[in-house]
Each structure stands twice: as C-alpha cells, then as structure tokens.
C-alpha cells in the first residue's frame, strides 16, 4: 500500500527530548477524555489524543502543521480530567512553540497575536488595550484592519466607558528592565530555548 504510515520512533524521541512537557506524552493511554472535554474540539483537525497518536506514529508534518496545537485557550478542562495526570494544555503550548521554532505556522492569526502580545509585554511590562488589537487587526492589510476595527467597535466603546482602555498610550511599568531579565531567564529554561 502506498500511503501506509511507517511507524518511526524518531519523531516521538524528538518530541520527548525537545518539546516543553513533551515527555509527558509517554503516559498517554489514549482514553480520549481530553478530546471529550475540550470546548474547542469541533474546531480542531486532530483532537489532543490523536495528536499524541500521530507523534507516536512519527507523523512530524501532520503534527507540527496541525492547527489544533494552536487552538488551546488554556481552559484546563483536559488537565483536570486526564486520568494519567498529563498537563495536556502545557503539551499543546509546548508543541505550538516548537512548531513555530521549526518554521511551521499552523495558525497565522494565533501566531501573530502571540508574537505581538509577547513583544508588548516584553517592551512595556503590560498590554496596551488599543495598540495590541491595532497591530493584530492591521497585520492583514489596511482594509481588513478597518473592517476588524468596526467589528469590535462596541466592545471598544464599552471598554473606554469603563475606563479599561485609555486614549493615551500606556506607559512602561516600573522596573521593566528587571522584568525583561526575568523573561529572558525563563525563556532559557524551556527545552527548546527561545522562540524566534
């Protein structure tokens, strides 16, 4: 058969070794409780359980370009329910991070949002509620940016009404240099090192 999958343990070994929390996958017994409890299951191409099966089978391409690994919203439903105590959420983030590092962009919007979010936190020590959406919305061009802004207008007005969004630019927090040092250090602690 042509399209028969060849089991290849090298990708599993790579994940165990290089992906943050990747070695936790070893303990998966494929019960599927993670998939069953995931609120985003219907938007995923492969549920977490199947991602783990694909890793074992050695399907590198499918795993690292799967949008599932970037859909996780950190709701912890799977972590709470996993009978094998696997931090499924951490594994998914680890895989997303690793995919980006390996040059895969499974979900452009998410990747872009993550990058902007990180940059802003790194620079200011906080999020600027108007600057972050602006950067994300206009990443796809001017017209798309205007459209997205109009879509979110109601929320924006409400945020301003409740003084959650200031008109002036946010200032840096005190001691942002120290924060940056901490973040640099933390990045170095991960298995994969700093993402691009």
């Amino acid at each position, binding site marked *: 058969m042509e399209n028969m999958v060849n089991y290849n343990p090298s990708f599993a070994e790579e994940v165990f070794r290089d992906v943050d929390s990747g070695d936790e996958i*070893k*303990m998966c*017994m494929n019960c599927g409780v993670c998939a069953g409890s995931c609120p985003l299951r219907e938007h995923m191409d492969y549920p977490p359980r*199947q991602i783990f099966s*694909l890793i074992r089978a050695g399907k590198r391409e499918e795993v690292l370009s799967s949008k599932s690994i970037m859909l996780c919203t950190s709701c912890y439903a799977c972590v709470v329910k996993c009978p094998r105590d696997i931090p499924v959420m951490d594994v998914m983030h680890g895989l997303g991070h690793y995919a980006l590092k390996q040059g895969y962009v499974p979900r452009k919007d998410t990747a872009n949002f993550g990058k902007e979010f990180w940059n802003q936190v790194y620079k200011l020590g906080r999020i600027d509620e108007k600057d972050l959406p602006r950067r994300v919305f206009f990443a796809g061009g001017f017209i798309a940016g205007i459209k997205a802004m109009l879509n979110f207008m109601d929320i924006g007005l409400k945020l301003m009404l409740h003084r959650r969004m200031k008109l002036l630019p946010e200032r840096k927090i005190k001691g942002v240099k120290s924060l940056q040092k901490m973040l640099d250090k933390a990045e170095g602690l991960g298995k994969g090192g700093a993402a691009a």
Partner: protein
Amino acid sequence: MDKKTAIYICTGCGIGDALDIEQLKEEGTEDFSIDLTKDHPFLCAQEGVDLIKQDIEGEGVNTVIIAACSYRVNYDVFNFGQGVIVQRVNLREQVAWSQPPKEEDTQMLAEDNLRIGCSQAKNTELTEPFKAEEEYSKDILVVGGGLAGMTVALETAKAGYQAILVEKEDKLGGFLGKMKSTITMPYKELSDPGAEDLIKAIEEEPKVKVYTSSTVEKISGAPGLYTVDIKSNGNGASERVGAVVQATGWVPYDANKLGHLGYGKFKDVITNVEMEEMAAAGKITRPSDGSDVKNVLFIQCAGSRDPEHLPYCSSACCLVSMKQATYVKEQNAEAVNYVLYKDVRTVGQAEDFYRKAQEDGNIFIRGEAANVGEAGGKLFVEADDELLGERVKIEDLDLIVLAVGMVPASKPETAPKIKAPADAEDADEDGMMEVMPDSGFFANSALNLEYRQGPELPTLKYGFPDSHFICFPYETRRTGIYSAGCIRRPMETAKAIDDAVGAAMKAIQCTEATAEGKAVHPRAGDLSYPEIDMKRCTQCKRCTEECPFGMFNEDEEANPLPNPTRCRRCGICMGACPERIISFKNYSVGMIGNMIKSIHVPEEDEEKPRVVCLICENDALPALDMAGIKRMKWSPYVRFIPMRCLGSMNLVWIADSMSRGIDGILLLGCRHGDDYQCHFVKGSELAETRLSKVSETLDRLALESERVKFVEVGITDYDKIPVIINEFMETIEKVGPNPYKGW
C-alpha cells in the same frame, strides 16, 4: 421425640396494629395440637427471649414457633441450642409491612402463615449429624506443585494440617521456576520469582509430604474419607485425605495455530513463554542468527479474545509483555519496544507497572496485526491502527513476541467449544466446534475421581472448573475439592497466591466441618442430610444424574450409593425422585406437601383466590423480605413456601395444590444459564425443566397451563417482585377459579 410445641407471637414492629392477635391465636392453631400460645410486645428483647427460655426449662417446651419477623433476622437471638426445634413464621415483612392493616385478607394471610409454620414444625425432626463408620482424615491433597500448589501446601502446613503435594515433573516450581522475574505487589519493579525459596521452605516443612514425578491415579471416597492412589516414579502409594486442592495450572495456547502471525514461518517470531525461557537462560537474541536485538514488537492477544482460537482474555499477558519489554530495555537502553494491543488489561494495581512501561518509552499501538512479513533480513508488521484509523507498517524488527494466552492444563470433563473456521468440517449447527483434548491441550487428567458423574471436575465452556464465581470462587462442583491458581481461571502470580491461600483455608474448613457432620457451603453448618428409603427405589438414576455435586455413586444394578459428606443439602435429589423416597429430617416431600395442605382455601363464591409461591430462600426470599422492608404492597392471596433450592421442587406438590383448589402456583428461582446465580448451580434450571413436564399433569386435571409459572429473579430484584406477583394474579383472575375448589 415427643414434641411439646409453643407458639410465641410478637406484636411489635407493627404486627399488633395490623392483626387481631386473639383471632390469630385461635384460628391459626385450631388444626394443630399446640401446648402453649403466648404473645409479647417485644419478643427479641431480653425479656421476650427469657419468656421462651423459661417455658423451655419449666414447661419442657422443645418445639418453639416464633411468629414474628423473617427468619433471616434475629436467628442468633432465637437460638435455643441443639435440642430445641425453632420454627419461624413471618408476620412482619410478608404481612404487617406489606399488607393493609386490620383487613380481612391480611388476617387470613397471617393465619395461613401460622398454619404453614405449625405444619412445618410438626413435620420437622431433630437433626442428627452424619457420622461415617471410618475415621475422618483432615489431611489435604494438593495436585500440582507450581506457585499455587506450593502456596496451598505451605499455608495448610502453617495452619497445622498435613499436606500431601503431588507434582508430575521431577521437581517443584512449575512455570514459576522457569521465569526470570515476576511482577507482583506493589507492581512497581521487577522482582525475583522466589521459586527456590518456596521449594526450600517446602522441603524444610515437616507437615508437607512431597511426591515428585508422580500422578494421581485414582481418588475414591468422599470429603473426609478420600483414598488417593498415587503413582510415584513407577511405584504405587496410597494416602488418606480429607480434602483436595487442584492446582494443576496452565499451558500456553498452541502457537502452531497462529501461522497468520508468522509463527513457524519466521524463526524470529516466538511466544512469550519462549521469550521468558530465553531471558531466564541469559541473553535475549534473535533465534535465527543469535545476533543482538534492538527493535522488538509484542503482539498482544495472539489468539486470545479471538472466537476461532481462545475466546477469552487471560488477563496476565499484557503484564508479561511489559515485563519482557523491560528485559529488552535492561539489556539495551537504546532498544525500541512496540506493543500492539487490543486493550491493555493490567488489572487493579498492576496499572502502576503499565505506567512504568510507558515512562520507559515503550510505544503502545492500539490495533490488530494484519500481516507479518520479512524484508531484508528484518521482520515487519502491518497493522490496522485503530487510533489513527489507518493501516500502519512497523519495520526493521528484530524480534516479534506473540503474547499467547493461558489454557487450563488438565483434561476438562467436556471439551471446550470455539467458533469453527469457515473451512472446518466438524462445525455444528451454531458454527462451533469442539477443541479435542488430543490436540495437545488438556492432555493430562488430574484427579481421576471415582465419581459416577465423571473423573474430573465439571467445567465451564472454556474448560475451567465450574464454580460460583462471585460467592464461592474456590468451590467446584465437587464438595471437598477446590481449585486454585490458573486452573481456576487465568491469573498472574499475586492473584495465584491469594487464590492458593483461600483454597487452603476452604479445604481445611471442609475437613473440620465434615468431621462434625456439617455441610460446608452454602448451607454451612447444616446438620441434616438426605436419607433414602432404598426398599422403594426403582433404580431410575434420576438422583445420580441430577445431583450437581455428584453425591451418588452407583452399583452395577444402578442402585444409588450415597456419600453424605459430598452433599450440599440442596434437596435437588429430593425434587428429582419420582418415588419421593429421599428426605431430610427437617425437609421432605411430605413436609412441604403438608404445609401446602394446611392452607385454607376459601369457597369459590368468596372470590378470594389462593396462590402458592414456592420461593428460593437464597436469592428470591431475601428480595421479597427487602420488598417488605421497603413497604411495597402486593396481593394478599399469595402464600409463600421457602425452598432450600428451587431444584428441590417435586412435581407432586403442584398436583397436590391443584387438586386442593389452589388457583395458581408461582415459582421464584435464581437466574440460570451461562451466568447462573443458583447457589446449587443447576437447581433453578432443573426446576424449569421439570416444570415443562407439568403441563401433562395439568392436562390430566383438565386445568390451564397458565396456572403454573416460573420466574427468574436476582437478589437485587426486590422492586420487581410485587410486579411479578400482581401480574400473575391478573393471569389467575383471567383464567378464573380452580374448578377443584371444595373437593
């Protein structure tokens, strides 16, 4: 014995509020000679019990009828010793709690219950324990010297009893002796099998007598009185024992039948037993060229859970493969183990070792092997990966281990059946075929019993001994013969040890109870036993055929030869006997007949039907009591008569009832079939079979066959019992009153 009978009616627990006690005393006892009738508001209190004791001592009362709660409660309170017959009448669960108070029908029910009890007490004799002429032995014979057998022998000795251990090989140890390591409690790491230590402990134990290179040629007699002929190294020996434990263990499923998995075709496809032997001998290598092993694939359920091979799960092979994967990793840390499984079944705490195997990086693939082949000197497996939903290929394999299941090592009494392959010639109508003992399995006979019903233990469909799996796991269908270890069911070492200890204790219990003339189980402590009036025996063989426990042997003229110590006191022989010549001191055809006759049947124009319910006292009666405790209501026209086992139901009772004008008969017994719940294995099934012949009797009496109904109930079915009764009453109403009323 001259009976002096006293009735004590308790008026507590709502009985006094529901009934007219004075009327009950008068009406309920008028047909019987009763010396004393008293009532008390709280009979199970010290004051009430003292009242009875005073009468026993002062008045010489020796038969006490207690009309109060169910006999299933307060049996310890109302125990007045061996010399006093105690008869319980249920006025609480079956009357006061389940019927409307102060109604005519309720009162009539209570009166009938009291009459039934009086009649039963009248027909009950004091039991005298059976005592054999020969001396009883309390030694235990253990057949099989593997882990289970050795543990049984040691435990027996530790408890102070002599054990005789018979092993067919020239040394003890069995499969345990062939293992490199075992996984046992607490299931974290591999551990030493410890076979040498066990063998040494046995050799040093003076209370264990070991016969190696020996087989059991014949076991004759009965519990407490067995004579065992042993052939040891060609010489004969004879031992007297009280009980037997069969621990003959298992053999691996014949891998030669697993050609589709490459066994026999490729040298590097081996079974888990061969793998274990190779590991125990030293290094794991490729059998084809002796080279090192890097990639190993374990095929789980090789032949197991496959209707054409072994239809069941052996529950130990998953753990064995994980153990052997650990061997491979210990030998070469770079090695890759794949485990191709249907379901990982590491039962109970063994799950911990599954976790360890996963942590070690073994790769578990859920799916079934479709093709095993060779390419470039290495093996490959194609499998349907259930989780990926695709056909996958695992290449570059050095070794494939088939995790074959366990087959009972001894010859079963009936050949197990499996699904016949499409091209099989000897398939029966259901597409099944027998696995013949000559196919290399079950080849050895283990016990060679001198029983009329056959030389080995009766088996279930896969060749394992029949036992009541939940309630009495070690007991087989031969009283005094227990099974332990993998002959009972496939299991791993920790369970085999548990099993062995349990079986040893049961065997000791049996020798002690037998010596006192008591039944072992489930009627533990029962002193009655069946007695046969041989003068009227017609040699019909029904008792010798139907006893589920093989109590009777037969002589050349087909006369039944009873062995009372084999008996479990169920009364199935009593129900089987067409001449009605088998009876117990406190349970007989005549007694139940009289109990039915004591029921007052109202005239037809009173429009009060009467139904007799013969109810199994093991499961159905507790369920009925439970329904009473839950204050459920049912028809007041039903009279319950408890049976030791529904199998003791004699058809004459049905004819008797019908001819007396009873409108219907309801039989409540245990579930039967493959997952039977009958405490006596065959009782309820036999009752239903006999009942199928009752239509002849009904035809003869020109009655409708709907008047007799058999219903299976479980002990948890209390909520269904009122429904069953009321539905039956509707049927009875439909068919109308029994025309024999008033005759």
